[in-house]
């Protein structure tokens, strides 16, 4: 069970990339809302979309980890 656990843990490290990416995107989004408050709606839509897409790579890591644990 030891190596399996380490393998699954390494697989989930992809979450770090998603966290950094979404953090940067949110920073830029809040900056642009501060600069132009009328575009709030469009910026919010773009932000949500970008976050959902960036989240995908973290999800891939999660699915692989589940597969690793499941296949033992």
């Amino acid at each position, binding site marked *: 069970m030891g190596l399996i656990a380490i393998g699954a843990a390494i697989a989930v490290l992809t979450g770090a990339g998603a966290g950094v990416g979404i953090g940067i995107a949110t920073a830029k989004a809040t900056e642009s809302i501060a600069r132009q408050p009328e575009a709030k709606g469009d910026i919010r839509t773009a932000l*949500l*979309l970008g976050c*959902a897409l960036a989240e*995908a790579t973290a999800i891939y890591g*999660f*699915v692989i980890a*589940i597969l690793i644990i*499941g296949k033992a």
Partner: protein
Amino acid sequence: MDNLLEELQSKTAFTIPILGGIPVADSCVVTWIIMAVIVLLSIIFTRKLKKVPTGSQCILEGIIDWLDNFFLGILGQKGKKYLPFLETLIIYIAFANLIGLFGFVPPTKDVNVTAALAGVAIIAVQLSFIIEKGPLKWLKSLLNPINLLDLVTRPLSLCMRLFGNVLGAFVVMELIKTGLCAIGVPVIASAYFDIFDGLLQAYVFVFLTSLYMAEAIEEE
């Protein structure tokens, strides 16, 4: 932990007793239920449509208007004939993700369902290319290796994104229910994971499909 892993597999609901028994999976039965619900809702809401809308017809027209404008904004006027397909896709995926709230197992938790949805979406994109520009141009576009690779990676990412999100929501909810506390806390977590995430993933899936379609049918 083993209990959790067991629940991740898809179970057979019943077996059709012809040709040596065809197993019908859990997710298939729930999909039938969703189909019945959507058909019933469609029949109920479209009875006695009036020229000047009132009540429930107002809400319905509002939703369809919003969806129409959203997709036409991405596809342009040429995309009018693909609207029914895309709107059906988003309604089905939204229902499928949300039906976890009613005690059923969401069919999108089964990777076969999401793979089928991704396959259908990509076939629709290629078909839109062929309809707009003809089959010869489609074959010529496949000579570019990036387009060929896209044919494989795009459905894979669509499938895995939807499946991973629904599976992750399910796992977290199970852990909260069994590990933390079965009353109160799941409501907040469910509101985020089930409702928000489910709707967002349906939106992202269909938005990406329409984006690929817009790329395929645009004039150069």
